[in-house]
């Protein structure tokens, strides 16, 4: 199981919470509800239709992704170019380096400069969010210390807090300080500094903003609490949407872009966590005590927040690629989403491992699916796949091809494999495809003989 992350944070007498354990529970529930797909002919027909559909969808999606990538890159460049001249000219004029300007002119220059900076932040935030939500900015997971990361965030924000005359404190309710979890430290810092800076901006002078840490065996939680004006109950969810602020004048007065919390949510979701806002008890409008003593209660979070996490998987996946770098990336992505992973560097190794795992079944678990690269030294992907499918021991294991080729370039493989992901792939596409393949396997697995025949017939 990958780590569970619960981050409780508060804005304006409110808490924003992130929760990870939910994902696992939900995924199990989803699996329980899956029904048998029905008779053999129906299954066959459907899987054929699916393969066809999938082929089209994949080709369309990768074309779309490429077009979108190019568009974003171009827009980013085209917007930054004029801004470079404007920012440069205004900066030099208002600095006084080129001679003094009178007070009224200086004030106008200041207005122009501030708004140029705001426009630049906005463009950066839009691109950041776009890249994250399209899966083009994958998180780089590393083992991190929760306490160290939190301390770093507090230190980074201390100058801002001091300028606003806010006291910044960090409290831990965990049993010890040695709390480690897998995360992208830069991204988590981005979330924490964003929440802290929001909290500072909306706090009255002389008040305190706290970052609270808690952890148990199931989950980690981080809470940012302030004593500011508070978020109205009807806005608790919408503040995480793009360009949604509590008051329409907030972005001009407080200097935000209106995208900060949307970015935070995106980052936390990529980590398999959950983020939300919660009024503090003194608001009294919601029956919450604010403390994340039982982060497993799913009702406090809206279904919209949970939905992207429902793809969480379970099972042992054999990942085969001759490039160890790709194996590592795929392994980390799958582990983060709840899968167990074993690796193989060649087709021969895949066949050996698949046979071994299937034969001795207990105590080691059977392989749920194989992710197979096509270009392999020695036995290539196609030959590996043929051998797997022609052996009664391994024929039932679904195979997803992970290849730089598109399905239309390799029609033979399409007929044999149960799924296809084209490289360079995006993470959600990989998880969707794997989830789909495992799901259709789960639909027929009740009768193992039945399942085997299906596979043979498809082959």
């Amino acid at each position: 199981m990958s780590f569970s992350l619960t981050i409780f944070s508060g804005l304006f007498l409110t808490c924003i919470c992130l929760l990870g354990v939910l994902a696992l529970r939900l995924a199990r529930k989803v699996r329980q509800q899956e029904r048998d797909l029905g008779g053999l002919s129906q299954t066959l027909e459907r899987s054929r239709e699916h393969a066809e559909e999938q082929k089209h969808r994949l080709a369309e999606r990768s074309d779309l992704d490429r077009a979108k990538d190019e568009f974003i890159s171009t827009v980013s460049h085209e917007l930054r170019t004029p801004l470079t001249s404007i920012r440069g000219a205004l900066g030099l004029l208002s600095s006084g380096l080129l001679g003094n300007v009178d007070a009224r002119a200086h004030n106008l220059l200041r207005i122009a400069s501030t708004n140029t900076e705001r426009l630049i932040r906005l463009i950066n935030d839009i691109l950041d969010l776009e890249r994250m939500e399209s899966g083009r900015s994958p998180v780089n997971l590393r083992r991190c210390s929760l306490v160290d990361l939190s301390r770093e965030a507090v230190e980074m924000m201390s100058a801002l807090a001091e300028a606003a005359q806010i006291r910044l404190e960090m409290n831990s309710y965990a049993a010890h300080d040695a709390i480690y979890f897998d995360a992208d430290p830069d991204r988590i810092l981005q979330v924490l500094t964003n929440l802290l800076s929001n909290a500072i901006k909306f706090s009255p002078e002389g008040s305190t903003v706290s970052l609270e840490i808690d952890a148990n065996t199931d989950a980690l939680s981080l809470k940012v609490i302030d004593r500011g004006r508070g978020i109205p109950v009807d806005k608790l969810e919408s503040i995480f949407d793009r360009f949604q602020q509590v008051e329409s004048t907030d972005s001009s007065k407080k200097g935000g872009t209106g995208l900060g919390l949307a970015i935070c949510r995106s980052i936390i979701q990529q980590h398999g966590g959950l983020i939300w806002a919660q009024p503090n008890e003194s608001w009294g409008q919601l029956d919450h005590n604010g403390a994340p003593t039982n982060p497993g209660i799913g009702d406090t979070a809206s279904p919209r927040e949970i939905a992207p996490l429902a793809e969480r998987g379970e099972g042992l996946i054999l990942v085969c690629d001759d490039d160890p770098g790709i194996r590592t990336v795929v392994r980390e992505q799958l582990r983060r989403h709840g899968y167990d992973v074993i690796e193989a560097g060649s087709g021969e190794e895949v066949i050996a491992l698949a046979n071994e795992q299937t034969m001795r079944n207990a105590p080691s678990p059977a392989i749920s699916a194989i992710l197979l690269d096509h270009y392999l030294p020695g036995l290539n992907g196609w030959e590996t796949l043929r051998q797997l499918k022609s052996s009664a021991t391994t024929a039932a294991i679904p195979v997803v091809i992970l290849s730089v080729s598109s399905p239309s370039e390799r029609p033979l493989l399409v007929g044999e494999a149960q799924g296809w992901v084209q490289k360079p792939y995006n993470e959600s596409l990989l998880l969707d495809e794997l989830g789909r393949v495992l799901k259709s396997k789960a639909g027929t697995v009740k009768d193992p003989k039945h399942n085997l025949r299906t596979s043979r017939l498809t082959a």
Partner: protein
Amino acid sequence: MRRILIIDDEEDIREVAALSLEATAGWEIVTASSGADGILAAGNSKPVPDAILMDVMMPEMDGPTTFRMMQQNPELAGIPVILLTAKVQGVDQRRFADLGVAAVLFKPFNPLTLADQICEKLGWKD
């Protein structure tokens, strides 16, 4: 005194960057509006520039191509080149880093700290 060659197809950016480096660091600035002109300007400049600040996206010859051509000219190959780019995507950044340029700086740059950033990237202590 340091001499810097700025290569950018946008006249406004050449002007702002030149003014910024002149006003904040007192450097001498030479400018060129294309990669080809930049190579000529670098060769004609006596002494050769201490550093070249070059745009990435330029018509005809882009920054990376111009850089590669300079590397083939023994007179120019030793001049540190800093790419100034409006592209901030990770893919682009990695591509630039692989070229072997001295540094990559991003647009929009801050006109008051541009000279400091160049000094820092090139290890200049002035």
